[in-house]
């Protein structure tokens, strides 16, 4: 169930280029600054942390390209090997609608540049997850997904993981769409492959903690439940060996745009989402627990951010001394030590 996230990659998606926003006051970032959902946060190349950054990293591509490549690869694998219930026209319509919606929102919000990457990520995620017999609904899902990024914002961050919101909204509204959590099967090899690929993205994306915390809590719940019920370990292992779960953990919940800023907040959030994700199938006996749980709990993130402000930048690697931007200046985890090539000209000071 899961991938997604339009702006899942930290670096990128997230950081609204500080440059692009002139010193913003504390006013809650909102429509006027629909944070460039995708441009990498330009960093001050002279910042000390950059000086430490390995050269190799500097040359690395925007991590969103990794994510796009991984999601596209998964989709190709799903279509060719797993025979996902989606046909190429739906893929084309979903991607086109996502890109067009992004373009339209960019214009309406008067953003300086059209950024197709996060829209592509959202579109690919929809293709991996959403199933419908109607092309128009595939397009509608893409449009809702993209516009939610621009419309549903608090403190300059969008509230919901866009793909998650798009899917849940359509299901909740009663449209004939569905998600097939069983489509991935439980092939161990595939699980392993997904974990590696996902890990790649997460490492580039900075939100590994939330992924690991979520997986840890979720696994603990499943094993705890199995222990209580007296089930064989094969049962929770079978539940964990799910492509849907890995996709969710590595590509959706890790979306830096929609996770709490502090590590404590993220771990707490991961625990809550894991509990919700288990409650839906095991207490309510409904499907798609991961998606419902994340959607229901996402509105808590702004609250968590206020209660647990924590350092803005929670990388395990050092980043140190750049001056801290005023509150509200940047919304997201800025890119790790990568020197962003400023997309919009100016460079902004940055610091954890």
């Amino acid at each position, binding site marked *: 169930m899961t991938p997604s996230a339009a702006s899942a990659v930290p670096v990128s998606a997230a950081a609204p280029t500080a440059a692009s926003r002139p010193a913003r006051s504390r006013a809650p970032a909102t429509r006027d600054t629909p944070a460039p959902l995708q441009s990498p946060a330009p960093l001050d190349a002279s910042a000390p942390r950059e000086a430490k950054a390995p050269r190799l990293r500097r040359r690395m591509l925007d991590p969103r390209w990794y994510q796009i490549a991984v999601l596209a690869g998964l989709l190709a694998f799903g279509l060719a090997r797993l*025979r996902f219930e989606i046909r190429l026209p739906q893929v084309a319509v979903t991607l086109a609608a996502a890109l067009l919606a992004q373009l339209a929102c960019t214009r309406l919000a008067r953003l300086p540049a059209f950024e197709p990457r996060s829209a592509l990520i959202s579109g690919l995620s929809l293709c991996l997850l959403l*199933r419908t017999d109607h092309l128009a609904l595939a397009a509608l899902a893409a449009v809702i997904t993209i516009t939610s990024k621009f419309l549903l914002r608090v403190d300059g961050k969008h509230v919901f993981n866009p793909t998650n919101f798009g899917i849940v909204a359509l299901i909740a509204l009663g449209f*004939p769409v569905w998600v*097939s*959590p*069983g489509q991935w099967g439980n092939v161990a090899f595939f699980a392993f492959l997904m974990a590696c690929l996902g890990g790649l993205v997460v490492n580039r994306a900075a939100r590994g903690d939330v992924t690991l915390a979520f997986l840890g809590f979720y696994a603990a719940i499943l094993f705890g439940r199995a222990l209580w019920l*007296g089930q064989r370990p094969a049962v929770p292992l079978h539940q964990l060996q799910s492509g849907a779960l890995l996709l969710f953990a590595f590509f959706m919940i890790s979306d830096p745009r929609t996770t709490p800023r502090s590590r404590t907040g993220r771990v707490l959030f991961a625990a809550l989402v894991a509990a919700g994700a288990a409650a839906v199938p095991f207490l309510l006996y409904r499907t798609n627990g991961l998606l419902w749980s994340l959607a229901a709990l996402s509105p808590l993130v702004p609250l968590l951010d206020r209660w647990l402000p924590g350092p803005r930048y929670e990388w395990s690697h050092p980043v140190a001394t750049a001056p801290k931007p005023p509150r509200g200046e940047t919304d997201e985890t800025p890119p790790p030590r990568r020197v962003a090539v400023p997309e919009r000209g100016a460079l902004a000071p940055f610091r954890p």
Partner: protein
Amino acid sequence: MLFLSAALSPPSAHSFCGFYVATGDARLFNKSSQVVLVRDEDRTVLTMGSDFKGEPSEFALVVPVPTVLERDQIHVGDQKIVEHLDAYSAPRLVEYFDENPCMMVKYEGKMLFRNAAPTAGIAEDAATRAKALGVTIEARYTVGEYDILILSAKQSNGLETWLNENHYRIPPGASRVLATYLRQGMKFFVAKVNLKEQAKTGFKSLRPLQMAYESPKFMLPIRLGMVNADGPQELFIYALTREGRVETTNYRTVKIPSDAEIPEYVKDAFPDFYRAMFRTAAQKENLEAVFLEYAWDMGWCDPCASEPLTQDELRELGVFWLDDSPGAPGMPRVRGGGQAPFVTRLHVRYDAAHFPEDLVFQQTSDKSNFQGRYILRHPWTGADDCPAALQYRAALRERRAKQASTLAALTGWDLADIRSRMKVRDDWSSDGDAVKWYQKLWKK
């Protein structure tokens, strides 16, 4: 598929939702089960057909159920309707006859792959000892030829002891599985055949048990049946829903190969073909998938392997919305009125190693049609020799080669063996390819 599994399987005693247990050493052939699930929102009507072949006095059934059932929630159905549903949704063979290429009927035949077999039961009273064992007899009914008890229990050990003392021979190791269901708050539906009642019914074979209940749980408990299974078991699930196709959420649901063109000789060996094809498909999915064999609106079919079920038959199976939804204009309707249910036929071969969890389902909005359909094309055997006919005969060889390789890939059969059964030469040509007009003249 039944006879299939009967042929393949050694005697044993278990199946789908629960298990059939024998009180004696009767040989029970029961590796193939059929379940009809009528589902809309939280309402479920479950019909359990199976192929119990032992003495009715030796039948006993134990099935976990989500709620305590009232008398009116239990019914004894008609196996013939289950068989009809099976025939309607069965994979089919379609025949086409090539036309004379020189100047150009489609004939559709069908061969069904059928399941069948009735259930069976036995009845037995419970004892007050139940209480001492922590077993509560929540309800006790006689329905048709069955004596039925609904049990709840505090401890699986107590339940196991009670079942054994009451001649429900529980396989060793069942206690642990019973415990997991008890912890989930499930009750146990246990049935035996009341021989007196059975004599009154006049039926020789046992009829399917049906239960109607309201619960968000949309699942089939299969683990009890695997406790002492000595090989994989076969389960057919026919889901009748309002919205669309049903699939499993905790296992992959995969379509069986379909629309494949296969050699003519398979017409006489369709059951063998289907069995081999299913085995190959299951192995390709590491024996971890549930297979979709049919998904269609009951309002029509094309080709029909059997006529769609009538309104009365559907009502008997538990389709409860026929009266309150007469079917909007333009919507498929069943014979006799009412919105046609969407039929999903799922086929799963399972064992404990590959199916550790019970099957959990969801109803999707998918209304696209699917059927297991295999095509035979009979070549034209005329003696004309116009240029088109010559071209046609040349193309036949290529077609045969392709059909043979398709069959080999689908079934895992040996290609050389297929070729010999097709009675063609190494270059895929056949004796009948170029018959002169006079060679047929005086032949019958």
